[in-house]
């Protein structure tokens, strides 16, 4: 196996005027990894991708692809990229778009093969302006793979896709990664990162707040959520009482419904039921990616507050 990291970002920073978009990112991606860059809008995902590709110049730090200047990797056709936005010309057909980009590359795949890999054969003769959101993304995927790259970088590849389109898209992605290639994709769909990546890098406010397997990232936030409906008046005293239950971290009330997050859910639930015997519609759920995400990004925001 090749020991040179596919992507190596060291101390990467990027500021636009007074705004810091990327605030000191260190990231190493090895060959064969499928990495999700997860974060809300404005977390710095797109800027990180631009810096990694050499499309923008970092304020500080370095970005290397395959051990060298990103531009060299792009010139060799080793990187396929799906950037955010339209990016294809509406008056051209899908096949023409792929052919035009292929012509700019030194050793492209045959156009038909790129179309087939992206499941675009049926829409090859359609104009880009007539494509649906999902078809558009597939066309852009065809453009991205036409150089037969070792590394695929995608910025929000499934934005504007319906469920079926997303499934088809990830299926063709699987075929691509099964050949041992490296994929990095930015997303704010938590389930997508959970399902398709074998490593999740979470970004918040330009920094990495978590980096690990989906399970590791989820385990960062332990505990379960207890949800129940309580009839009757709700007082400050009730809230204080619930907060004193075993392992409780937070209590939230919306109308009749109360949500308790606890690190000791069994004990908390027993105590809760002995106090509120009339509680109904009780539900106990494990934390999912959303909760992990909220907890982590909130933690980083609090840290920032302290520093400021």
């Amino acid at each position, binding site marked *: 196996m090749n020991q040179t990291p596919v992507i190596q970002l060291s101390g990467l920073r990027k500021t636009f005027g007074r705004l810091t978009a990327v605030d000191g990112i260190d990231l190493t991606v090895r060959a064969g990894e499928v990495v999700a860059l997860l974060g809300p809008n404005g977390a710095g995902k797109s800027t990180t991708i631009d810096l990694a590709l050499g*499309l923008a110049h970092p304020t500080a730090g370095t970005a290397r692809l395959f051990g060298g200047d990103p531009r060299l990797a*792009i010139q060799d056709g080793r990187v396929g990229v799906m950037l*955010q*936005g*339209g*990016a294809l010309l509406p008056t*051209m057909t899908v096949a023409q778009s792929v052919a035009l980009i292929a012509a700019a590359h*030194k050793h492209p795949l045959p156009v038909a093969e790129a179309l087939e890999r992206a499941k675009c054969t049926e829409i090859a003769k359609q104009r880009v302006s007539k494509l649906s959101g999902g078809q558009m993304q597939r066309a852009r995927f065809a453009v991205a793979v036409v150089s037969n790259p070792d590394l695929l970088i995608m910025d929000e590849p499934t934005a504007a896709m319906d469920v079926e389109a997303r499934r088809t898209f990830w299926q063709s992605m699987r075929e691509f990664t099964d050949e041992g290639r490296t994929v990095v994709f930015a997303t704010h769909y938590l389930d997508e990162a959970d399902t398709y990546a074998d490593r999740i890098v979470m970004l918040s406010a330009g920094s990495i707040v978590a980096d690990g397997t989906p399970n590791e990232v989820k385990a960062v936030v332990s505990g379960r959520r207890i949800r129940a409906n309580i009839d009757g008046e709700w007082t400050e005293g009730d809230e204080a009482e619930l907060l004193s239950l075993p392992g409780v971290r937070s209590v939230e009330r919306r109308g009749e419904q109360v949500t308790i997050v606890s690190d000791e859910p069994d004990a908390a639930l027993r105590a809760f039921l002995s106090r509120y015997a009339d509680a109904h519609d009780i539900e106990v759920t494990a934390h999912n990616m959303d909760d992990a995400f909220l907890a982590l990004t909130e933690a980083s925001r609090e840290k920032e507050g302290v520093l400021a």
Partner: protein
Amino acid sequence: MSIAYITLESWRQLKNLRTFIFTFAVPLVMLLIFGGAYGSAGAVDQVTGLPWIVVTTVQMAGYGAMMAALSQAFNIVTERSLGWNRQLRITPLTGAGYLVSKVIAALATSAIVIVALIVISVLTFHVQLPFAGWAMAALGLWAGVIPFALIAVLIGQFAKPSYAQPLFMVVFFGMAIIGGLWVPLQIMPSWVSNVAQIVPSYWLNRLGQMGAHQSGDILEPVLVLLGWTVVLAAFIIWRYRRDAARS
């Protein structure tokens, strides 16, 4: 630099027939009107020593060619706003390759405009000029169009969609009038003639006239046009490299 890419890109531009027809229609109508007005009697222009109809044909062919080249700006503005240039930046296409592809596409369109206008003029007005004269005139105009192709790329690279149109108009009308492409310079105030010496549209027209004459000192026009070309090309390549970054 990729020949395959440049070929496909030029072909793509040529197929864009709609803009092509508009580029062509205005100079054609002006040629038919002015050509009929000035040229029918076979009068000779004292300044250039060429028949008026030849002067008018060169003027209008130059005007059409300039318009064909400059209108590239709109394509580029649109392409950029769609993110096409970002897409190109993640291919091996270099800044110089991008520039050449756009200039060649512009030259291909203007070549067709020049030839078509000259052929129509010859067929309509039965102008007496040797074939070599027309060929050299066309070649002179064609070479003179290069700076305009570059100006178009530059407008395309810097202008936002919202003000590309007015910017194009200012450049286009300014160049057409000061360069003497609409009305001969001798009927304008003398300061216009002085300013004309440094604008590429004046030399575009002069190169066409010299070609038609098959004589004249081409050193000055070549130097002026080369100066424009080098400065514009440097700006464009610099800009293309920065353009991909999101702001």
